């Protein structure tokens, strides 16, 4: 009945089931979530014509497994027909299984814990693969040798570790001459990334590249800028947020990979709706999303 | 201009439902030294707080130098020339002596900067006047002895060249030498026309240094006499409202076995080795001037402060006391000086204040049976005749004397063999006092050994079977009942002062 918004790829089927309620959950602690929220909002408008209510549930600004659990618990209590959530952490599997056992299908997007759960499917980037992808890119930029500083978000976050190890394993295998500095933890804080880069450069003035696996890559880029090393040291990180892309333009950021967050939010919601109407399953319970690598020379 | 400095008319003061001052009138002339005396809690400090502006009167008027004065703060009082040296030390240990003397103002210029040069010079001058000329005004105040800090307070008061100077028990922590120096200073000030009010518990001091002596009792001004024509007995009569009625009635008890034997007890530095015996059924009085070391002795004995040497034997068996818990287990119990700060549990009920020492005995497998606890506490409260609405009301809602009796209840429930009482009737009214004396005698009759430290001679005379006089941290002498007289006791109390530690010129911080 309606045009798909730009960036969305899945169309809704005719509703034969009567009113349907879907809970869409996301965090709200940094700009990464802006396109996610926009995708959810677009799905809400698009599905409204199909007699579907999509409620956006704010899981808060304090990212933790407990926040996910509390929100899913409350969605079960409110008897939603389906749930779209972002279970970044290990430990969220149980509550997802519980929801499914209650007859509420759950779709995970963006990132999930390392343990399997009964969710309908997981849509997202393969963090290890994305790490390897960036590892390959960095090896190319560094011409196979030199020093690479590594800053990871939280040592405890599965996705962060996978991104880190994806790159490190690839490099260890294919480019053992590249020397790794770190890894250091910045707890997603840009100001810590800034100080870490300063100190790393002090101890390694032949530093060639910095890899930031999670929050705050722009802090690292800013440090490069302030050190006057634009063009000499490049930063590689995740997500096309405005703060990050600024440094693509100014040249400190060598590459940013994104996760197509708008598309994930929209498509997953519509696919969940289609499943609720048709009852049809999916070929795989993992739906990969390609990351786009943005460099100063444009999209790769 | 009239000679009249201060006129108080019909001053009233209530704290909530407690009526503390009842229509007090008082005149002070220039150059006059007034002695203000009265029992603990008579309202002396409260009255002076009103004069100085710390408290507002509930009713009544005040005039200063002929003009009506309505003071809203200490600042107002100081602005018109009234200085007040408070009973409790109110010094700031973290600041220098000079800064303390000019506390809150520091002779700061318009830019708000402390004028260190000015305060240093002026402080040095005023230190000379109070007898501390040898101390550098830049010294951190916290390094001074208590007595020296008291003198700093006095320096703080006179540096403003007040027209009326109020001293609330200034001599309580001074050595006799320092006290004499202070009296000389007071004389000098009064010669210059300053009016002075001196609050003291030492009648001799008041008689010797004041021109008039005013007695407060229960918030009423009882008498106003010229000291030249007044005697001690008269003043005591005015203060107490009757002849000193406490009579000694320990004579009929025979001396029992030695219960407590203390040998060579020493603390970290103040106490000389102390030897002392207490027999069953005996009340031993500890007399001394303030600072003589009685509290130190009792606390060291009780394990509340570290002991460096000495042994304690109880009923013939040696006991090792290194903590209060050891002492209590062995059968000692102490009622400390300072009811409010070290005695009561302020948010607890009367019942729980009494029973706290008894929980160990009451408890079965660690549980306290509520009924037994209530019963035990209620029984004590009744025998001690504690006046209260309910045993479950907060202890802070009782009068001081009744709080003290509740603490006696606590001590009794601990079932001690030796009872240590430090100023047991401080701030207690006459009626409660005599009841407490009866309690003490009763306990002695039951065979307890009791040590009572007191600064009041009549109390010692009414209670003690034997009197141990402390001075300068050591025992100056022991008097049997027959030898006990005011003169004999006082003579001993003053005897060792001269060569006692801490009284010489060498300041404590110089060590």
């Amino acid at each position, binding site marked *: 009945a309606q045009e798909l918004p730009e960036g969305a790829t899945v169309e809704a089927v005719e509703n034969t089931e009567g009113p349907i309620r879907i809970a869409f959950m996301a965090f709200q602690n940094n700009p990464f979530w802006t396109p996610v929220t926009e995708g959810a909002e677009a799905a809400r408008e698009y599905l409204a014509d199909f007699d579907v209510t999509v409620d956006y549930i704010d899981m808060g600004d304090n990212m933790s497994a407990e926040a996910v659990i509390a929100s899913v618990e409350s969605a079960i209590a409110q008897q939603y027909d389906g749930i779209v959530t972002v279970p970044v952490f290990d430990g969220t599997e149980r509550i997802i299984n519980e929801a499914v056992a209650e007859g509420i299908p759950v779709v995970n997007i963006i990132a999930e814990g390392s343990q399997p759960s009964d969710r309908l499917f997981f849509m997202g980037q393969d963090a290890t693969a994305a790490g390897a992808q960036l590892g390959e890119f960095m090896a190319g930029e560094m011409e196979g040798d030199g020093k690479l500083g590594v800053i990871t978000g939280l040592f*405890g976050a*599965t996705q962060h570790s996978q991104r880190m190890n994806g790159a490190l394993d690839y490099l260890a295998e294919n480019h053992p001459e590249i020397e790794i500095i770190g890894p250091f933890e910045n707890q997603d804080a840009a100001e810590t990334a800034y100080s870490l880069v300063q100190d790393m450069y002090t101890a390694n003035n032949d530093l060639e590249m910095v890899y930031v696996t999670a929050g705050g890559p722009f802090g690292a880029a800013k440090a490069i800028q302030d050190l006057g090393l634009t063009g000499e040291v490049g930063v590689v990180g995740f997500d096309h947020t405005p703060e990050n892309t600024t440094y693509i333009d100014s040249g400190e950021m060598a590459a940013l990979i994104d996760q197509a967050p708008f598309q994930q939010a929209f498509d997953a919601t519509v696919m969940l709706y289609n499943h609720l109407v048709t009852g049809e399953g999916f070929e795989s319970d993992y739906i990969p999303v390609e990351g786009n690598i943005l460099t100063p020379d444009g999209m790769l | 201009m009239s000679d009249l400095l201060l006129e108080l008319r019909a001053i009233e003061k209530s704290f909530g439902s407690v009526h503390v001052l009842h229509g007090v009138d008082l005149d002070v002339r220039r150059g006059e030294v007034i002695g203000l005396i009265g029992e603990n809690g008579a309202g002396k400090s409260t009255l002076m707080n009103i004069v100085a502006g710390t408290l507002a009167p509930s009713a009544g008027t005040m005039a200063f130098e002929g003009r009506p004065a309505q003071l809203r703060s200490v600042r107002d009082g100081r602005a018109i020339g009234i200085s007040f040296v408070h009973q409790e030390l109110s010094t700031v240990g973290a600041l220098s002596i000079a800064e303390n003397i000019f506390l809150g103002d520091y002779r700061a210029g318009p830019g708000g900067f402390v004028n260190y040069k000015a305060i240093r010079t002026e402080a040095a001058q005023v230190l000379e006047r109070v007898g501390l000329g040898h101390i550098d005004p830049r010294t951190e105040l916290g390094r001074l002895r208590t007595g020296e800090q008291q003198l700093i307070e006095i320096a703080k008061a006179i540096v403003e060249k007040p027209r009326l100077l109020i001293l609330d028990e200034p001599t309580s922590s001074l050595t006799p030498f320092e006290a004499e120096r202070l009296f000389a200073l007071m004389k000098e000030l009064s010669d210059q026309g300053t009016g002075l009010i001196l609050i003291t518990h030492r009648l001799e001091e008041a008689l010797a240094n004041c021109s008039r002596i005013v007695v407060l009792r229960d918030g009423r001004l009882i008498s106003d006499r010229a000291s030249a024509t007044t005697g001690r007995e008269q003043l005591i009569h005015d203060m107490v409202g009757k002849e000193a009625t406490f009579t000694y009635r320990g004579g009929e008890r025979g001396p029992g076995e030695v219960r407590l034997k203390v040998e060579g007890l020493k603390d970290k530095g103040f106490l000389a080795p102390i030897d002392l015996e207490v027999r069953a059924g005996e009340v031993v009085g500890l007399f001394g001037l303030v600072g003589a070391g009685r509290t130190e002795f009792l606390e060291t004995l009780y394990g509340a402060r570290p002991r460096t040497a000495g042994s304690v034997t109880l009923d013939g068996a040696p006991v090792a006391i290194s903590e209060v818990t050891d002492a209590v287990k062995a059968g000692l119990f102490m009622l400390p000086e300072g009811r409010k700060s070290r005695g009561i549990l302020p948010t607890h009920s009367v019942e729980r204040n009494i029973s706290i020492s008894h929980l160990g005995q009451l408890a079965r497998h660690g*549980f306290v049976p509520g009924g037994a606890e209530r019963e035990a506490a209620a029984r004590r409260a009744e025998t001690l005749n504690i006046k209260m609405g309910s045993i479950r009301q907060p202890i802070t809602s009782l009068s001081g004397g009744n709080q003290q009796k509740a603490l006696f209840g606590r001590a009794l429930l601990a079932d001690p063999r030796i009872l240590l009482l430090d100023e047991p009737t401080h701030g207690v009214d006459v009626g409660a006092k005599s009841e407490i004396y009866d309690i003490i005698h009763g306990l002695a009759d039951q065979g307890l050994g009791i040590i009572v430290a007191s600064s009041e001679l009549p109390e010692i005379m009414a209670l003690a079977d034997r009197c141990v006089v402390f001075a300068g941290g050591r025992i100056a002498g022991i008097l049997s009942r027959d030898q006990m007289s005011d003169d004999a006791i006082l003579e001993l109390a003053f005897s060792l002062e001269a060569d006692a530690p801490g009284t010489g010129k060498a300041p404590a911080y110089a060590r």
Partner: protein
Amino acid sequence: MGGRVTRSLAQVFSHREASIALMILILFVALSFANEYFLSSRNLLNVGRQASVVAIVALGQALVIISRGLDLSVGSTLGLSAVSSAYVASVTGSQELALAAGLGAGLVVGVLNGLMVTRININPFIATLGMLSVARGVALLMTGGIPIPYTGWAQWLGAGRIGDVPFSLILLIVLVVVFHIFATRTRIGRNVYAIGDNPKAARLAGINIEGTRLLVYALCGMLAGLGGIILAGNLASASPDLGRGYELDVIAAVILGGAALSGGRGTMYGVLLGALLMALLSNAFVLLGISSHWQVVAKGLVIILAVGIDGLRRGRED
């Protein structure tokens, strides 16, 4: 008899517990009207479960605060206990040992806190601030920062239900009762209040202050350890990051529940109410679909309000 009941009631409601109970009631009524699912037993049980870890740890914290102490390290202790327990479980496979390791780790931290406060005379705020860092660091070192999967008893503790009722909620209720009895009926519990009320007087009355304080910190550490096991069990995963920032929530629950930082005052049911109020607030924001940012503001305002009312009533203190 009637008089006694009225007096007890009056006593209960003269305290801050009353304001909190009232706030809970108002929230309850408002939410019942605002969201049809609020009163469902499932939702209410969820709220109870969500409150349980904070409340359990807060019981220990309350004892510490009543004795005029403070324990800022509970959040880190929780994380350390969780990983210790999970680690032992994964290495030995023994559930008993795992449980003991979790509680033991909490106990050790608590005892160290207690020793620092009683033997080295470090101000509790500072001693436990240091421990906050040390315990978290040790947890990170033990795991290299990687969460350890954790199943077994812990999972049952954290996620099990008896009928519909979460086991952790039942455990909480039992613990509240036990600690209420401990605090009000036992000698040691009563000594805790006396020490907090006036430490000098308590010491002179023959109470073993050092021992009691040590015990209180040890209990607090052990309850934080239990909290860690429950939380890790609930997540089936023990992350060294678990419990980060919990200390402030726990202290807030205790304060809301009527305890005073100046010691001597506080009740175990008050702690329960405080933790429930905070969990209810979170629940309300999720149910009403209000931005969680408002929740952050509301949490702060509730603390200020609850304590401010008292402050105005009590007047100046120095």
